[in-house]
């Protein structure tokens, strides 16, 4: 009797301690990071999740310094103020991001263009100039003038992480791709096997590790629905959205969104938002998902869908007429019934 009681106590104590330790291990660690002109929410569980979240925080902070066009210490700032044919030494990360941006620029015939920074500034869509309450749009002459300095072909990538440009007035911004790239690096460098959770880098979402994740696509307009639709995805997926409802303003009843088209004006082609889904973050990276969402938005439906197909991306496109389409997407569930299938 005595022995069995001791065993019982031991067993209970062990269960108690074990459950305590296990719950400690599995505790979700969540942190918000302000970087890339947005807020990111990092939420991980698993062994050493706390360390990983801290590492991601400092990784994002350092990438933000390198990529912020308004920060005088950044690579981007130094490229933007460089004179004609001046050689600028940049970090390996900036160099890699420039390579991706140049590929996308060539493949989309200039529809995806990181060199519209001066135009974005003129239109007041950069972080330092943006306002939700703008009363007038820029003059056409000013737009046309900036439009003659947006050829990304004027930027050349040299060896050893050096770059140069033939147009001193060419200015770039990484706003369209920094988030996805930062998420890619976080996955590569900090996330360990066995960890799981979500890296939501300002709307570019990475699912990590085992499990099933429910990702909501926001309703682009103020409807009664909680959100537009739901994607159910396994780990190692990436989802991101480019829409006309995040950074926009309305002047004289017309909506102007932050994505600048080849004509120097905010894109206005009947698309409200483009959500890109990668089912394998290693095959189709976060940086390229970011490229695709902006590119499809700027290219318009037909060309955009073709371009996304080349990379095997899934798409959810919402149109201004209240319709939507999905391409190569499984497990999508419409929530906002004010929209109908096109």
């Amino acid at each position, binding site marked *: *009797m*005595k022995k069995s*009681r001791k065993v*019982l*106590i031991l067993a*209970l*104590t062990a*269960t*108690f301690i074990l459950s305590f330790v296990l719950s400690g291990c599995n505790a979700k660690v969540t*942190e*918000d*990071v*302000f970087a890339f*002109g*947005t*807020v990111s*929410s990092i939420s991980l569980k698993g062994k050493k999740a706390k360390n990983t979240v801290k590492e991601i925080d400092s990784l994002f902070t350092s990438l933000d310094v390198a990529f912020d066009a308004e920060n005088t210490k950044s690579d981007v700032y130094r490229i933007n103020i460089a004179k004609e044919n001046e050689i600028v030494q940049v970090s390996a990360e900036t160099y890699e991001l420039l390579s991706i941006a140049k590929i996308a620029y060539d493949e989309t015939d200039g529809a995806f263009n990181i060199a519209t920074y001066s135009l974005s500034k003129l239109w007041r869509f950069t*972080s330092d100039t*943006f*306002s*939700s*309450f703008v009363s007038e749009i820029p003059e056409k002459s000013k737009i046309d003038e900036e439009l003659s300095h947006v050829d990304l072909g004027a930027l050349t990538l040299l060896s050893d992480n050096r770059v140069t440009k033939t147009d001193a007035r060419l200015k770039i911004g990484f706003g369209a791709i920094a988030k996805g790239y930062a998420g890619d690096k976080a996955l590569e460098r900090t996330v360990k096997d066995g960890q799981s959770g*979500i890296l*939501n880098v300002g*709307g*570019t*979402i990475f*699912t990590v590790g085992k499990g099933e*994740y*429910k*990702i*909501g*696509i*926001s309703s682009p307009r*103020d409807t009664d629905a*909680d*959100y537009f639709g*739901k994607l159910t995805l396994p780990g190692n997926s990436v*989802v*991101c*959205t480019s829409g006309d409802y995040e*950074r926009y303003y309305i002047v004289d009843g017309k909506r102007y969104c932050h994505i600048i088209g080849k004509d120097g004006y905010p894109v206005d082609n009947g698309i409200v938002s483009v*959500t890109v889904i990668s089912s394998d973050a290693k095959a189709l990276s976060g940086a390229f998902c970011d490229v695709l969402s902006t590119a499809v938005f700027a290219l318009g439906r037909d060309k955009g869908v073709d371009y996304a197909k080349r990379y095997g991306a899934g798409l959810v496109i919402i149109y201004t007429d209240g319709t939507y389409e999905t391409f190569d997407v499984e497990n999508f569930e419409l929530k906002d019934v004010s929209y109908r299938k096109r």
Partner: protein
Amino acid sequence: MKKMRDFKTEKPFYVRDFIAVAAVLAVLIASIVMLTQKKGGTVEVYVDGKPAYSYSLEENRTFTVSCDDGVNVIEIKDGKVRVIDADCNNRACVKSKAISKKGEQIVCLPHKLIVVVHDGSEGELDART
């Protein structure tokens, strides 16, 4: 003789056993209750990544959050929360629609302020894009 000794030494243990088992059970029950408890929504306000305010979504109130760069005026009304005024440069937070569901958030980037709803209804999403 043997029986006597056993009885004497076992009795105090019996009491301790009971206390130990009761304690473990109490902790177990308490944690189950805490895990399954359904709370109404709460509004959490973070400034520069740190929690600053936490209020019930069920009680109407208007409050002002001050940070180094300025102020945001936040209104909780009829189960929804929104930013009704701010002196930041872009006022995107004021333009944001009222939120009420778990995980929804309003962000004021210039003030590094986040208003987020926790533990409300329909918390069926892991993230939003």
